[in-house]
């Protein structure tokens, strides 16, 4: 009897180890990645955004509200649980390295729009243990809400605080449900997706469309004649914490 029990435990242990190791072999033996989108469109596109500093009208929230309602972003009403895709913070906090005692009056406390930078070298995707966040060929840093295990390593790795975690069930806190976009569950990370669902239909991101001031410019960096390329080549632009090598794809026009 004793031997049987030991034998059983040993075999069970070997089976469990085998099951755990198999997926690792699968990764190395995989020959071709599954193609989700047309490869040609993806490789000819590199999405980016330019934001004109100081172009916003006082107290305007059109871009934020448009994004929140389209993406079912919940409103918990407290900063601890808050989910943010696009929001504003003072200039000095967006660009701490630019701050000084004699900063220009027009920049002092200026609300600056911030969102996920869709970095070309995203540290969040580097640290994700399950590939639930990754960079697409067109530059969009994506989130798979169904694969995310909620370890929040990506939140620790993001130098911009662009990622939010669902500390509670978000669904009761969505003001008006948009049935065309998935809601999230508690325990997963989310962030701005550059409106990839709208880009797929040939639409501009919701925030860009909603901005009356035309303060947000969105376009393809790989297209020399795009508006964003022209703006970048004729204006002085800065990026958030560019010294970290993350290569943000959100540019701020001074």
């Amino acid at each position, binding site marked *: 009897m004793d031997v049987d029990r030991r034998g059983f435990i040993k075999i069970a242990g070997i089976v469990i180890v085998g099951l755990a190791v198999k997926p690792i072999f699968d990764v190395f033996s995989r020959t071709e990645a599954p193609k989700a989108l047309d490869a040609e469109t993806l490789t000819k596109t590199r999405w980016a955004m330019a934001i004109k500093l100081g172009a916003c009208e006082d107290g305007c929230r059109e871009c934020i509200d448009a994004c929140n309602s389209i993406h079912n972003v919940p409103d918990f009403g407290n900063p601890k*649980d808050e989910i943010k895709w696009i929001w504003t913070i003072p200039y000095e906090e*967006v660009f701490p390295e630019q701050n000084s005692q004699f900063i220009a009056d027009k920049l002092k406390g200026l609300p600056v729009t911030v969102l996920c930078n869709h970095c070309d070298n995203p540290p969040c995707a580097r*640290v994700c*243990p399950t*590939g639930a966040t990754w960079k697409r060929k067109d530059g969009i840093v994506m989130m798979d809400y169904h694969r995310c*295990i909620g370890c929040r390593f990506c939140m620790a790795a993001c*130098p*911009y605080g662009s990622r939010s975690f669902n*500390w509670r*069930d978000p669904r009761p806190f969505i003001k008006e449900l948009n049935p065309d976009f998935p809601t999230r569950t508690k325990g997963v990370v989310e962030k701005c997706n550059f409106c990839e669902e709208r880009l797929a239909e040939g639409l501009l991101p919701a925030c860009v469309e909603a901005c009356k001031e035309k303060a947000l410019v969105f376009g393809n960096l790989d297209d020399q004649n795009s508006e964003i390329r022209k703006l970048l080549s004729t204006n002085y632009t800065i990026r958030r914490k560019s010294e970290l090598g993350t290569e943000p794809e959100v540019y701020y026009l001074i």
Partner: protein
Amino acid sequence: MIEKAFTGDRKYWAWILFLLVVIAIGFGFYLLQWFRGLGITGMGRDVSWGLYIANMTFLVGVAAGAVMVVLPYYLHNYKAFGKITTFGEFLAVAAVIMCILFVTIDLGQPTRVVNLLLHPSLHSVLFWDVIVLSVYLLLNLVIAWHLLSAHHNEEAPKAWVKPLILISIPWAISIHTVTAFIYSGLAARPFWLTALMAPRFLASAFASGPALLIIACLIMKRFTRFDPGKEAMQKLAQIVAYGTIITVFFLIVESFTVFYGQVPEDMNHLKYFFFGLDGKTTLVPWMWTCFVFWIAAIVLLINPRTRKNEKTLAVAAVLVFVSMWIDKGLGLIMPGFTPSPTGALTEYWPTVPETLITLMVWAIGFLILTIFYKITISVKEESGEEESAHTVSS
């Protein structure tokens, strides 16, 4: 052998019952977390890791620290540790199980934990940490159980166990190095972005692991017929002393670079750690308590009179264990996230449910440790090993 865990005196059962009660209470709150989400903890948007991950990091150290009895015995043939190597290995087993539990309860979607293996990401340090921890757990479990069984059956251990023991030594270093890499590769968090992180982790591990072993040995000596031997205890105390001194030295070295270099982003975290920032001083009393404990422990461990006295040795071991816990449990995660990358000064403090869930994991760990130690002591008592101080079990 496992049946030996089911026989014990009243004190043994009272201790087991106490642990089970703590586990039951904590589990109730874990169910609450399961249904409501991690919002019941003190963690939030700005401080997105807390007590759970901090305890995981600390316990990786305890697990790695156990190598400090295995290495001298097997590589340097230091016989005095012969009686306690099994205890060191079982300590590693219990500590790694706690680590894995802490990682699991920290997940927002624990039912998806298999995604780690279904979609392994070789560029993620967390993936590698899970791998090295699991292998370390298996190594120690197999080694300790086999050596104890061989001892119990009065046979010589099988030849295959020796290479496993040799592998387990560098593997212990690897678990704490990889765990340090979780933090030290994040450019977003200047407090963690230091190459000194892994050496600091190891130095504190070599203090906290053996310190817990000293406490466990003194308890076993008091309540059972097992005696680890004076020489082994003294050598452990010396190891703890070196580990603690090097930990303090590393913190001084780190502080010099940060405060003399005066890079504001680096300084703000350490200022928050030592003095508080803009009136946010939650951490300050804890960190200074930690320093006082370190200094007191070093004095008690260096002075031969207090080191050789079992009472003061026990005090020193407790001081080291508690201070190393403060250093990792509070002093590692909180200053890493405060201030946030945009300068927000959000202070974190664990909630009551979060604390009770944390205690649940500790109670599970101590339950496992108690059972393994009970079996080990029973086997050693049977063979009359406690009679002679220098019998070697393998």
